């Protein structure tokens, strides 16, 4: 097999997080690819929940949109959008949610609204979608993002979605039931919140990545665990399944 790419390592690392999870909420792109891969390799019973109202979708192909026909045709149940948020996401029935963002700060808060000033943005991004309530209510959140200084910033231009807010106690004060981000999986490694300060800390680097590289790609002075683990490289089984999935 040809050499492993950073994108493949990131997707495989995300899929591994789903090994012991019952239900996962996903958007499109790499999170969706990771979740379908997890069903193929680690966890065939994993329930995929998409924002479009498809619960228990079993897509053979990676969907382009969260509402592709194949998701509706293979779902255990299809519900309306009000029902999705009020009966399924809000009460915390979904165990894990994968979220992306244009900016992530050191407390795992996310921006997907604007770069620059809100009234006169340099770049208008798509906006919140379901993220704020998904992040407050799903039992835990895993953020999937490319590791660059543009994404990992000291200060968000706009706080679309709360991770740990202003630090310890924030989520409780806001009345959130979910635990918040338990991991941020990038193409360089994995950040996890420090149990005391909630600050994202580099706890894992992907095979062949140096801690210094990760520091340089982060827009704040990155906290690093004493001995960061090294992501074990994708197995032949993981890699061949992923490549087969992408070729469908």
């Amino acid at each position: 097999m040809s050499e492993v790419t950073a994108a493949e390592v990131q997707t495989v690392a995300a899929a591994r997080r789903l090994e012991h999870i019952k239900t996962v909420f996903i958007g499109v792109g790499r999170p969706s690819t990771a979740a379908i891969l997890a069903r193929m390799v680690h966890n065939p019973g994993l329930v995929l929940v998409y924002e479009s109202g498809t619960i228990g979708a079993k897509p053979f192909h990676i969907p382009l949109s969260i509402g592709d026909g194949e998701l509706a045709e293979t779902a255990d149940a299809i519900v309306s959008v009000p029902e999705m948020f009020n009966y399924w996401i809000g009460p915390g029935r979904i165990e894990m949610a994968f979220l992306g963002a244009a900016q992530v700060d050191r407390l795992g808060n996310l921006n997907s609204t604007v770069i620059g000033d809100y009234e006169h943005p340099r770049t208008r991004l798509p906006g919140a979608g379901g993220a704020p309530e998904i992040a407050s209510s799903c039992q835990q959140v895993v953020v999937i993002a490319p590791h660059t200084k543009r994404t990992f910033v000291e200060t968000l231009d706009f706080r679309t979605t709360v991770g740990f807010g202003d630090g310890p106690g924030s989520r409780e004060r806001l009345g959130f039931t979910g635990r918040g981000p338990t991991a941020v999986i990038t193409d360089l490694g994995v950040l996890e919140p420090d149990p005391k300060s909630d600050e994202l800390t580099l706890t894992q680097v992907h095979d062949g990545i140096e801690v210094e590289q990760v520091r340089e790609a982060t827009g704040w002075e990155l906290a690093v665990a004493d001995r960061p683990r090294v992501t074990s490289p994708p197995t032949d089984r993981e890699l061949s399944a992923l490549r087969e999935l992408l070729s469908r």
Partner: protein
Amino acid sequence: MAELTTLPEAVAELVHDGDSVALEGFTHLIPFAAGHELLRQGRRGLELIRMTPDILYDQMIGMGAARKLVFSYGGNPGVGSLHRFRDAVEHDWPRPIELEEHSHAGMANRYAAGAARLPFAVMRGYAGTDLAAHTTVKPITCPYTGERLAAVSALRPDVAVVHAQEADREGNVQLWGIPGVQKEAVLAAERSLVTVERIVDQLELRPGGIVIPAWVIDLVAEAPGGSQPSYSLGITARDNDFYRFWDEVSRDRAGFTEWMHAHVLAGLATR
């Protein structure tokens, strides 16, 4: 009681300049044919309401039909930006657009409150975000538990436009697959238009199908293929290539305008 009519007649009768209009459909059943007819009839100054503006509102915004957009996610799903939406917000082209943005949960609850003819919906949401300061959401205290919750105002569009798979000759409508907020939008609006893939003698009830009775709909018009490039489950397939193609066409103002004149204003809503 719903009347069956043609799409041009339905749009002429129900949608006026300056109206608030919700053309709904969550990825599935997006009423493209009706939106294009609005553009052909030259409607202006619209308040466009939609959870996910998608390509349809990118086209309507780029043609200058909207004064305001009420929404929760303005991206090209799985592809990237909506370039006409971005150009309007970032550079006021072709005209400035006012934004009122929410989360999906907020919009969904606003439609549900509108359908229920309640003044607002109560939910857990917006807390701790910057969105709260830039939109209409207010805190409310639960009279039973004292919990602080969010109150979002009801959506009551002047007109709702949705697409469905079929209607019978009485104007009863059935849709199946991803139901989005279409039923809520119809029940929340003052007036409603449903376009359908086909008119049938009798509705055959489908598993998971939603029937909207004729007596809550104003007009029904047949529009085969009317949700393309989105889709009508069981009848048409989502044209994912078009969504990727739109990313190129819509990047450039001149290219976009030329494409719209050739393909939409000329009456041919295909590539």
